[in-house]
Every structure is written in C-alpha cells, then in structure tokens.
C-alpha cells in the first residue's frame, strides 16, 4: 500500500455551499441537507441530473443516504453513508476521488445538515456507551477530550490560558465572518470564568450547538474547468483510525492525525510549511493544539505555546479556522464538511473580510469520535497542481 496512490489533482471541488448556519427553525435535517446540496450544485452550474454519486450522513437516520437520494430524486450509481463522526465527509471526499478518477462516477454530491439547536437544543449524538463505560455516567464526548487535555497538561505543561488562546482566535476569526453564529467579543477573563463542564474544559472550550448544513460538488478536474467556478484541486488525502473509546487510544497525546497528515502530504507533494491555512475540526480547544502538533506545524508538546500570543488568530503566523471554526462559527454535530467549504471559499478568493492574502494551499482536517477517526485533505488553487 502506498500513500501516493491517491489520485492527485484528478478531481476538484466544483461547487460549495452552506445553509442555515446558526438557527434554522422550521426545517428538518433532511430539508437542510437537500437545500445545501441544491445550493452547491447551483454554485457549480450543475443540476440534480448531473449527480451520479451521493455521499452523506444524517444525524439520526441510519439510512440517511437513502433518504437524501430519494428526497432529491438522485438515481445514484453509488451512495456512501459512511459515518465515522465529524471526519465522515472528508472520508466521503476520498472515496469520491477514487471512484471518479477510476471512471465509475462523474459527479459526486457530498452533503450534510442538522437542526440540532432548533430541534433538541443540545448535541444530537448517535453514540452509545459500552457496558464497561456506561455505568459511570461520564459526560461524553467532552469527557474523552478532557482526559486527553489533562494528560497533555501533565506531560507538556499546557495551560488553561493556552486552551483559551484557541477559543479567542476562533472568536476573532468569527468576528470577520458575517455567517458565524457567535461574534460577540470574548476576553481571556471571559474564557477563564466560563463554567467548567469536564475539567480542564469549560463551556468556552466546547464547539457550538448550532444548526447548519453544507455541501460540496466533486467532479473530474477537466470537467470542473468548464463549470461556473474556479476549480479547487484535490491534491492529496489520507486517513487513520486508532480506536473508538478514549480508553483504547494508544497515546492520549498523539492522534491518528500524524499518519493521516503524512499520507495527505505524501500524496500532494507538499508539506506543512507550504500550507497557507489550516481548516481543522476544533470540537474542543485541545483538538486544535493536538492536531497542529500531529500535522507537523510545531513539535509535539509545543502546541500550547504555538497557539499563544495570537499566532493562529487574524494577522498571526498561521491562519487556522478562518470561518471561526466549530468553536465560534457553526457546529451542527459533525463539523468536517465545513472545513472543505471554508478552504474552497478562501482559495477562490470569496472569503470577504476574512480573505487571506495568500490562499493557494489548504490543509483540511476532520476528526471523528473521541480523537478516533482522523482524515486529512489538501486542497489547492489550480496553479499549485
């Protein structure tokens, strides 16, 4: 098996959209998913009749892939309902690229939506505890991330202030994004005084509970060149799964992102120093620190210091989560797809006030479970091919 087997730049994101970010009352998750899909097709200059592959998973419907296919009337040659948590959609993208480059599919629609804030007011999760863990009634998934954070603090001296720097950076980016759900100012004092949910993590360390939907359209790069938007080339991708429950994580301070990132870099022919931005799944503040280490932006254990002093905030040394991330922009339960949409908007120079000056290469990273499933995707401007 080789990491360079990924079909580098064979495919592109031709369309991208979000819908109902924040509050979307009166809509079902299925309706939101369908609407985002339709908007992404319109963005690409395509129609439903062009879609022959459908990739999705809905928050509560085990057969959601079939539901979306029926709802949109897509006679799919392939439906992928793979659900690995928030990394699902980056995994969908990998599968779609292999299938399109092999000639089985022409155009894939990857879409997702959730109305969890309007409908439930809390994280809607299909996770069930095992017979070994459920009796302890731990609050999960935050408890798993808190355990990893406790170990990172113990081993490397990471502090609550370091975690706070992640939250503050996300909020500062969100203030530049009119679509973001939380744009009110946040100070370090606000962060430090937020209620603790699972120490060392408090409510200000947690991603939002919001509504939201997103979709991307993937097709062969030569086809994408004939469509409405600048094609965003899919240069590399890689994945790794290391465990499901946090108790089985081999090393609490090293995630599978180390391997997924290495695979994506090898496929793309680029490394961390080449990236103009990182769009990663910040379910909790510790995620950003762990992933920046594992994806090669700083040495292991240095993540807390790396994010401090505004280094990942607007105007800092590395642009991370330019939409405001799951912490301040949108988090309908599984965030991964939004990393692809934000990178696409940046690479197309459509990001408005938060537009980066140099925005040719993006690392997108999805996380599922409790640091369990990791998938990395490298997107690039056509000039980077």
């Amino acid at each position, binding site marked *: 098996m080789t990491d360079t087997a990924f079909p580098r730049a064979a495919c592109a994101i031709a369309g991208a959209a979000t819908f109902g970010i924040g509050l979307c009352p009166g809509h079902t998750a299925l309706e939101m998913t369908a609407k985002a899909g339709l908007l992404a097709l319109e963005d690409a200059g395509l129609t439903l009749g062009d879609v022959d592959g459908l990739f999705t998973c809905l928050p509560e419907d085990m057969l959601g892939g079939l539901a979306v296919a029926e709802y949109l009337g897509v006679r799919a040659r392939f439906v992928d309902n793979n659900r690995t948590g928030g990394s699902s959609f980056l995994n969908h993208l990998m599968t779609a690229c292999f299938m399109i480059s092999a000639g089985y599919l022409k155009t894939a629609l990857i879409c997702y939506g959730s109305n969890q804030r309007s409908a439930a007011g809390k994280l809607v999760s299909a996770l069930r505890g*095992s*017979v*070994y*863990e*459920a*009796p*302890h*009634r*731990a*609050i999960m998934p935050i*408890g798993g991330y*808190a*355990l*990893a954070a*406790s*170990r990172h603090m*113990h081993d490397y001296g990471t502090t609550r202030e370091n975690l706070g720097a992640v939250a503050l950076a996300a909020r500062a980016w969100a203030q530049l994004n009119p679509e973001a759900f939380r744009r009110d100012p946040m100070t370090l004092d606000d962060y430090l005084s937020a209620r*603790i*949910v*699972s*120490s*060392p*993590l408090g409510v200000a360390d947690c991603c939002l509970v919001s509504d939201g939907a997103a979709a991307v359209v993937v097709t062969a790069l030569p086809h994408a060149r004939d469509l409405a938007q600048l094609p965003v080339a899919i240069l590399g991708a890689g994945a790794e799964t290391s465990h499901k*429950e*946090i*108790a*089985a994580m081999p090393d*609490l301070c090293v995630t599978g992102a180390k391997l997924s990132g290495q695979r994506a870099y090898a496929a793309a022919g680029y490394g961390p120093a080449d990236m103009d931005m990182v769009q990663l799944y910040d379910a909790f503040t510790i995620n950003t620190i762990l992933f920046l280490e594992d994806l090669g932006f700083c040495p292991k254990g240095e993540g807390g210091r790396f994010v401090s002093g505004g280094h990942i905030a607007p105007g800092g040394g590395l642009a991370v989560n330019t939409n405001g991330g799951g912490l301040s922009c949108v988090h309908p339960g599984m965030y991964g797809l939004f990393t692809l949409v934000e990178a696409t908007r940046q690479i197309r120079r459509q990001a408005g006030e938060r537009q980066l000056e140099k925005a040719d290469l993006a690392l997108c990273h999805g996380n599922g479970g409790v640091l369990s499933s990791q998938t990395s995707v490298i997107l690039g401007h056509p000039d980077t091919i």
Partner: protein
Amino acid sequence: MRQTDGPEAHYLQALREGRFLFQRNAEGNAVFPPRLVAPGTGEALAWAESAGRGTVFAVTEQPQKPPAASRYIALVEMDEGFRMLSRIEASSLPAIGTRLRAVIDDEADPPHVWFLPEDNHD
C-alpha cells in the same frame, strides 16, 4: 446446540460473583475490554483475575447540579498492564499518578468496577 457465553457475558457473570477478570495473550500482555481473540493478531486469549490495583493515568472532574458531588472520571492504568475508563469516588480531584483500588459493584445492572484512592479506607 447452544453456544457457551461470549467474552462480555463471561466477564459480567464473573463480576456478579465478585471477580474482576481481564485477558492475557500468549506473551502475557493484558487485553481489556474482553475480546474473542487478541486484537491485531487473532491469537488466543486466556482469562486472568485482576488484583484490583491501579494508577490514575488521566482524570477529569465533571461537576453535577448541586447538591450532588462532582463525578471524577479517570483512565486507570491497572498494575497488570491494561487501561480502563472508570469512576473514582473521592472528595477532591485525584492527581495523575494517584494509587487506586478497585471496588466491584456486583449488584448493579450491569455490574461494574469503580475505584477508591488507595489511602481511603471507607
């Protein structure tokens, strides 16, 4: 013909009888939670009984609505070499490295193992 119990049912039945079991592979490495075969290799596993002593590897405090006391959730590194998620009954957050002893709740459904700090003799 009826199959004998799977590993999970065997583990739970042992807990009901007051015994805390785990498994070992041929090299003696501990495996938990119980499985049909050793993960990654498929080799046979043998049951063993834990002495119930371990160390806090990672820990989090989850405050509850007053007047309920905080819940302490930990990853416990057992002396036999396996790691498990459990609950520590303590009056304050036990530090990483704190020695623990297991308590078997054999009456609960499902039966399970929780921990006390070793210097606590309640």
